[in-house]
């Protein structure tokens, strides 16, 4: 190793925000996701204010108790995600795998319940299209409902897939207290998706 290489070895880039690349990249990406859901939610708010008679009162069409339970399940999955991260921070491989599995199961349950809910709603005539709409309110209600909850459900599904990938890497023993970028980044995504659901549950089901 020559002299320049030795000097280079001790050089550090500017501190930036003090967050390593993968984590910073995820935060930046989540900003973009915020804007995506803003466009969907913003469109919903505008349409609902413009046409209040197109939307049914809370609880008339949508099954609020079922979804409340489902919301609780998703919040629990955020807790288990934190436990998974806390485990690998202490270098506990078994804990990481256990809590990742728990998060995956809870996330899958959430998606499963959502599919069950969709099937029932569609049977009752609550659909996204104007021609087939047969429930209380108007087709705008169905259009906005499936748009927002559908894209949220897609995000949860992609999150579950990402967690499965993290789990396979955890089984291979890739992660340690010094190498946990993947766990933390996917965890951030998971919490974000959870947070979006709390907003959606409030404005779509409760108000």
């Amino acid at each position, binding site marked *: 190793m020559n002299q320049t290489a030795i000097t280079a070895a001790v050089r550090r880039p500017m*501190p930036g925000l003090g967050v390593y*690349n993968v*984590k910073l990249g995820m935060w*930046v990406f989540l900003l973009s996701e915020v*804007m995506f859901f803003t*466009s969907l939610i913003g469109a919903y708010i505008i349409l609902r204010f413009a*046409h209040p008679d197109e939307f049914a009162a809370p609880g008339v069409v949508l099954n609020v108790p079922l979804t409340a339970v489902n919301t609780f399940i998703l919040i629990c999955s955020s807790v288990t995600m934190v436990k998974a991260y806390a485990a690998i921070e202490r270098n506990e491989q078994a804990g990481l795998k256990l809590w990742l599995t728990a998060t995956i199961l809870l996330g899958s349950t959430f998606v499963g319940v959502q599919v069950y809910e969709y099937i029932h709603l569609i049977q009752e005539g609550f659909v996204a299209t104007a021609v087939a709409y047969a429930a209380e309110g108007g087709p705008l209600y169905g*259009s906005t409902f499936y*748009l927002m909850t559908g894209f949220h459900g897609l995000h949860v599904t992609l999150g579950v897939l990402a967690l499965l990938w993290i789990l396979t890497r955890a089984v291979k023993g890739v992660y340690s207290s010094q190498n*946990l970028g993947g766990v933390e980044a996917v965890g951030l995504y998971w919490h974000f998706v959870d947070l979006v659901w709390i907003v959606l549950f409030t404005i779509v089901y409760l108000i």
Partner: protein
Amino acid sequence: MSTPTAREKTDWDIPHYAGDHHEELSFIRKYVFSTDHKVIAVQFLVMSLVFLALGGFLALLMRWQLGFPGQPLPGGTLLPETMAPGGIILPEFYNSLVTMHGTFMIFFAIMPLLVGVFGNLLIPLQIGAPDMAFPKLNMASFWMAVPAGLIMLASFWVEGGAAGAGWTAYAPLSASGDFTGVYLGQQLWLLSLFILGFSSIAGAVNYITTVINMRAPGLTWFRLPLTVWALFITAVLVLLAMPILAGALIMLLTDQTIGTTFFLPEHGGEPLLWQHLFWFFGHPEVYILILPAFGIVSELLSNGARKAIFGYHAMVLAIAAIAFLGWIVWGHHMFMSGMNPMLGTTFMVTTLAIAVPSAIKVFNWLGTLWKGNIHFHVPFLHAAAFVALFIIGGLSGIFMASAPVDIHIHDTYFIVAHLHYVLFGGSLFAIFGGIIYWFPKMFGRMMNPFWGHVHFVGTFVFYNLVFFPMHGLGLEGMMRRLYDPTQYAWLADLQPWNVFITWAVFGLLAVQVVFFVNFVASIWTGRKAEANPWQANSLEWSVPSPPPHGNFEAMPIVYRGAYEYSPPDRKEDFILQNEPPRDPVGDRVEPEPQPTGGLEGSE
């Protein structure tokens, strides 16, 4: 090998400096599925120049119809019967031409040229990084843009033809094929832009992370070249604007395909909602298409004038101010849409406020030239032309920003003139200048300066002959997107102008052939470039042309800003940012910067 830093511990894909290690890559990994930011920049360059040429060709077809309505296009019989039977352009095909010219130029030419090419090429090189923060994501970004472009291109040949509702795709015209006769074409348009959105967001995540986290020691925020600042702020706009478009595209696509009713009024939808969503994306997009050009022009002017950029901090703040104001002005595209007039006044005020930071930039560019020792090299000429044409485009923008004036000139050729003065006279001149200036860093050779001058002069002259008369046509009432100007009596007198413009377009495109030939020929036969052919200061000029994989032998150390041209105590009129101070005991000496603290998990 460099020792892992706290940042690297948790990353799985760390780019290395050139001196660190060497790994022979296969041809495919080196030139096709490459993760090297410089190769990706060249890939974006090739892709977007092809689409730029295509967009120019579509413009030529439109101009033929406007200059000689109803006359068969020379060679037009080669086009299918559904586009131009007997060589005469059909009205439906003309709608597709208008739409696709705008779409290709904005999304597949100017945007990838500015953001994809210069972002990829310059960000790592100018901040002293070996590559982007996420090289594989960067590769994915390019390989998402290609299929998006191909889908858009393919839509010309599907049943019903390509999208014909304008590049703004206003609903309800775009929301149902029953209005335009275009079903699949419009859906492919939506799908293509949706995929391109992923590409852009992936790029933005990369750029932002790279600029924040990977600047070489000593390269503080206010020592960054203005290109990096402009690209960084542009990346923030891309990051936040593209998802809004994505949401709107999805709603329009489901309206078209499965029968939702977001924008269709007969079932309670709101056509104006599309306009609000589109322009909430669209106005930041306008600045995405010009801010990187601001950065490039600042670089070229300062280099040509051999002077520090005048008012560096003001330049940075002006870019930031324009980017911020860009979010609260979208309604000025909708003065005539039936929006509440009170709201229109609000948007008018915020829009006029943008004139302030824009004027600061122009003032500073002129201040940079003042008493400079100007070298009229080809990139400098393009930058100077940019300033001149941007002033015209900026002034006509003020006309349209005033709601009462806009009532008269909206949807006329005045708008067409304005947008081409900022997008062609502005962005494209900066792009030409930038390509010529950084050509050695991409291909290791110089472009031919004689043919560069020919191309510049020809483009400048023909460009103004094409677009300046359009101001007058617009004021006289010629509508944009008009298929046949001779069908209105009051436009008949103006027809000689349309013929004149059409001939000027032939000239303009002919001159572009000079550029393309010069570009392609110089890749193989141009003069071999030394490391710093323009005698500039920023870090990319401290490494060979083209730089090796990994860019720098080792992490460079930065001692000064990017614009210290003509320092008083030197024979040369430039000083590289990473050249160590010469006097080891004088008070100019700075210790080697050792950034500490703030790193997570660094204990």
